[in-house]
């Protein structure tokens, strides 16, 4: 990242925040999330499990939005890509005796290779065809995971060692919060660089972008590979947190869950999905567990919210935030919400 012009009139704290792609409210939110496991109702183990799942969905939705929001291709096999990473990682730990930490990265590499392949072969296709191709790819990978019983134990599920040798969920919670933030940070860095401009140019008008000297092949494949690599690492986390891995995690309905969160959060914002995931998924989990005599109610609400957002408020939460909350009159509040703004 090259220094921006407003670096000069910023103090050290503001500059650090800017580099870390955070606003003061973002930092406050992050600190709140880190303190959450010590605040009474959330310090119970089952609540922490839900929160970890929230974090997983949040991180996945950031990675998903990196493709869907910036080059306008919906990767409909996203969970299958994550599942590939998870299975690679789990199999490496079980069969090769690797440490889960290294295996997680290896899972990321394998997913990146998969993403490279999907990205390459979907190059010739327009929006919906590319989505279909990634969807079929996901279906095929899931089918393989179900049928290669000798390797993956199929629907019976693969037992995987956990990352930390404790019963407690707290370390996992901290890890996933760090992963959410890292995912966001890496994506944001890429998007802030010149590459982000190229992504947006490609998404808006491929021909115009090509005329301006942007090579769409490189940027599209790069974007796809990177978002799949993120999914792979997160899939590794999923595998080594739950301790059991079934082909079910690759199912299209799981991708739909990620997609819904990313879109409700607001496409093209990166942070929207991550912010929405925590309250939204958490509420869904509460609905699911308290109204367990009404199975599927949480998903009905889920789908209704998705439909309403898609029809009436396609900008999602981030658009709402930008238009209604972000520009208050009070200067202190404004600083809190936006950080130090560039002087014009």
């Amino acid at each position, binding site marked *: 990242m090259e220094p921006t012009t407003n670096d000069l009139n910023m103090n050290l704290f503001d500059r650090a925040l800017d580099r870390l792609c955070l606003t003061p409210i973002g930092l406050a939110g992050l600190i709140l999330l880190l303190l959450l496991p010590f605040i009474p109702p959330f310090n119970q183990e089952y609540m922490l499990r839900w929160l970890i799942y929230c974090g997983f969905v949040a991180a996945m939705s950031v990675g998903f939005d990196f493709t869907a929001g910036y080059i*306008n291709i*919906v990767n409909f096999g996203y969970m299958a890509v994550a599942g590939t990473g998870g299975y690679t990682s789990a199999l490496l730990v079980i069969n090769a005796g690797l440490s889960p930490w290294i295996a997680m990265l290896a899972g990321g590499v394998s997913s990146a290779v998969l993403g490279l392949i999907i990205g390459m*072969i979907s190059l*010739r*296709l327009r*929006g*919906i*065809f590319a*989505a*279909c*191709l990634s*969807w*079929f*790819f996901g*279906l*095929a990978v*899931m*089918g*393989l995971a*179900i*049928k290669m019983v000798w390797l993956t134990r199929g629907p019976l599920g693969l037992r995987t060692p956990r990352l930390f040798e404790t019963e407690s969920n707290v370390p996992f919670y901290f890890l996933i919060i760090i992963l959410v933030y890292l995912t966001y940070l890496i994506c944001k860095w890429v998007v802030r660089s010149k590459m982000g401009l190229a992504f947006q140019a490609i998404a808006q008008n491929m021909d115009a972008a090509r005329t301006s000297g942007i090579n769409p092949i490189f940027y599209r494949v790069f974007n796809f590979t990177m978002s799949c690599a993120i999914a792979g690492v997160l899939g590794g986390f999923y595998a080594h947190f739950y301790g059991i891995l079934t082909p079910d995690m690759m199912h299209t*309905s799981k991708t*739909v869950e990620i*997609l*819904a969160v990313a*879109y409700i959060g607001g496409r093209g914002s990166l942070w929207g999905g991550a912010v929405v995931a925590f309250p939204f998924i958490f509420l869904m989990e509460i609905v699911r567990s308290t109204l367990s005599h*009404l*199975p*599927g*109610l949480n*998903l*009905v609400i*889920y*789908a*209704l919210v*998705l*439909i309403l957002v*898609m*029809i*009436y408020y*396609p900008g999602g939460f981030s658009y709402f935030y930008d238009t209604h909350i972000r520009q208050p009159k009070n200067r202190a509040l404004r600083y809190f919400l936006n950080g130090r703004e560039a002087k014009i």
Partner: protein
Amino acid sequence: MSKNNMSDTLTWLKTAPGLSIVISIVVAVAATIDAGPYLLVNMVVTGGMLALVATGLTLMLGVLNIPMFAHGEYFMIGSLTAYYIFTPISGFIMEHPDSWLVTFGPFIAILGALIGGAIAGAISEKLVFGPLRRRSTDNWVMNSFLLTVGVSVLLVNLHQLIFGADFKGIVGYWQGMPISIAGAYISLDRALAFVISAVIVVLFYLFMTYTRTGMAIRAVSQDITGAEIVGIDIEKIVMLTISLACALAGVAGGSLLFMYPSYPTVGLEPLYMAWFVVILSGLGNILGAVAGAFMVALLKVITMEYVGAGWDFVVPSALIMLILIFKPSGIFGSDVRGVLDK
């Protein structure tokens, strides 16, 4: 003249549709000789059902440019309607084995499935697609696709919430001896399901080709402004198209209730398969969709026979990805352009 015809045929054989059709026929014949005629029968029954679902999907894509992800759920609605209509009828048949309902009761159930699908389609147009179309049509294909994803999740879980997740199936529609064709036994249900789907596909084709309404639908699919200029009521045509497409899925669900009992996610398999067909045959091509349906059915049956059950997602999706790579517009191409995404 005949010579000219010959050379025409030869040229056609060298194109992608000709080649793929010839290869499929050869493969079908070879597999039938190798494994027995039941394979062909299975293929024909599955293909007939797929043709119904895929035609509806093609219609949605070709005319309205909606890549329907929820099409399987209209299949589910059809099968659910047929189940709730047929259960009292079969109770009645038990008590009165000689009544006319023994023969015609199933038809009532299947007709109910058709109407149920059409009504569900009309409702979703009123509540979901209409509002989106009126609000904005930018990036229409992707937005409507995501919208149908939401509809799909909604319908699946409403089914689970209201009717429960258990299998709601019947033993069979028609009692009677199976028909024997060339040494393969086909139950009456399967034979009639195929007949029903064939009749409906033919009727649908005639409707689209010869009636004024069918022509209006095709006109809208080619040029929406031109259609409006000549006085076609677009809103009406859109509504009709969606109900027709959903009715086709519903009738497929209703007539196959004996094979696919109704449960929340019953629509997934027909949906995947119909998407394979649509990608294979190119968007918006109805005759291509029918041919493609039989090809996908053949692919599926052969995979089940020679590779094993459960591989029937892996092999077809791998093949279809290959087709997408080399021929993104599908085997039969498509000359019908979408309306809202230019």
